[in-house]
């Protein structure tokens, strides 16, 4: 499917510009053209698909579903899977959190949703697929869902309600399950233009980070020898995975740009598990989100919440390094 892009990149760089395929610049530019085309095509395609899926499962509906159904633990799986299909912006995390709690959804399940929603989002899926192929992407999505379930379950068992802000605790006491459903009845055909527009906006919003990321990736691809990083980062260093997750947390806004760089790091010798752990830290945990959550929970609870997620990310990093 992507062969066409490779032919185009070869033709453009080697024939039109006449840069040798053996030169550093030839390799770097070829990578840049090929990766840019591939990532943007996949990004637009996947954001559109997710937009369509999401138009059938808007977050209001998901909230009502989780609020009304008690399923003996299965609701963790549902909450986590729903997190995958809904688009997520860290500025929505607080209203979402309150909305869930107000609807009588247990804290653990609310956390499950809050973990998976940012971790497995359309932009991450698209760039992952472009950079690492569909097998690694499926592995990432699967891990994200399991991580949300485990994280939410553990947090739910810790009885953390007392660390919520007092007005939120009052909401829990007065929680009511939702029953009214004010559905917007539009057909897919009516909604499609706005879905496309939305997809275009998402792509536009992250495009600058992607181009910068591919630029850096391309340069490393062309100029660094294969196996360059093996000397510095390898599976033997036990601290590499935790360090990767911690380093990833402050890089949130550049998630779209980080993945194309990490793709090259892996090609040049960084273990894939360490790389996945790093990207999970980048995508799933963000400092701006932590700041916003301060309005509804104590700093201690935020620390427990982030700590639990980070712990499971580190665990998955080690696991991938062992099995991949």
């Amino acid at each position, binding site marked *: 499917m992507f062969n066409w892009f490779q032919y185009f990149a070869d033709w453009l760089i080697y024939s039109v510009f006449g840069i040798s395929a053996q030169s550093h610049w030839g390799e770097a530019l070829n990578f840049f053209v090929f990766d840019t085309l591939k990532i943007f095509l996949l990004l637009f395609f996947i954001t559109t698909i997710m937009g369509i899926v999401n138009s059938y499962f808007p*977050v209001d509906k998901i909230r009502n579903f989780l609020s009304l159904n008690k399923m003996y633990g299965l609701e963790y799986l549902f909450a986590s899977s729903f997190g995958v299909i809904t688009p997520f912006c860290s*500025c*929505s995390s*607080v*209203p979402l959190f309150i909305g869930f709690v*107000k609807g009588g959804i247990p804290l653990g399940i609310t956390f499950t949703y809050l973990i998976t929603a940012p971790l497995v989002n359309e932009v991450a899926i698209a760039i992952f697929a472009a950079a690492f192929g569909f097998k690694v992407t499926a592995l990432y999505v699967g891990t994200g869902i399991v991580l949300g379930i485990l994280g939410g379950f553990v947090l739910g068992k810790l009885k953390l309600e007392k660390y919520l802000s007092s007005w939120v605790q009052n909401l829990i006491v007065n929680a009511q399950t939702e029953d009214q459903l004010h559905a917007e009845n539009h057909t897919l055909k009516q909604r499609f233009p706005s879905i496309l527009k*939305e997809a275009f906006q998402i792509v536009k919003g992250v495009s600058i980070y992607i181009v910068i990321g591919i630029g850096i990736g391309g340069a490393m691809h062309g100029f660094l020898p294969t196996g360059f990083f093996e000397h510095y980062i390898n599976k033997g260093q036990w601290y590499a995975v935790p360090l990767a997750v911690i380093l990833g947390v402050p890089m949130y806004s550049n998630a779209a740009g980080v993945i194309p760089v990490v793709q090259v790091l892996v090609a040049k010798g960084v273990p894939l598990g360490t790389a996945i752990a790093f990207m999970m830290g980048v995508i799933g945990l963000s400092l701006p989100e932590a700041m916003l959550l301060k309005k*509804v929970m104590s700093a201690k609870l935020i620390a427990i919440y982030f700590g639990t997620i980070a712990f499971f990310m580190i665990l998955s990093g080690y696991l991938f390094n062992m099995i991949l």
Partner: protein
Amino acid sequence: MKQIKVLGPGCPKCKTTYNNVLEALKQTGIHAEVTKIEDIEEMMKYNVLTTPVLMIDDVAKVKGRIADINEIKQLLLQ
């Protein structure tokens, strides 16, 4: 007079929506009372889950995304 509310905790998307509302009002010449609701407790009274939310006369018209100028103009003229 129409009452327009923009709900959101002050993220860039919410600011864009707010500015789009002002621009749409200017272009259509409609007078309306525009309020920006940034306080989370106040916001939750309207039962929102995703931000930004654009409300016209207490009805949520656009949820969870930026409403663009043309879209707001259409909603205003309805």
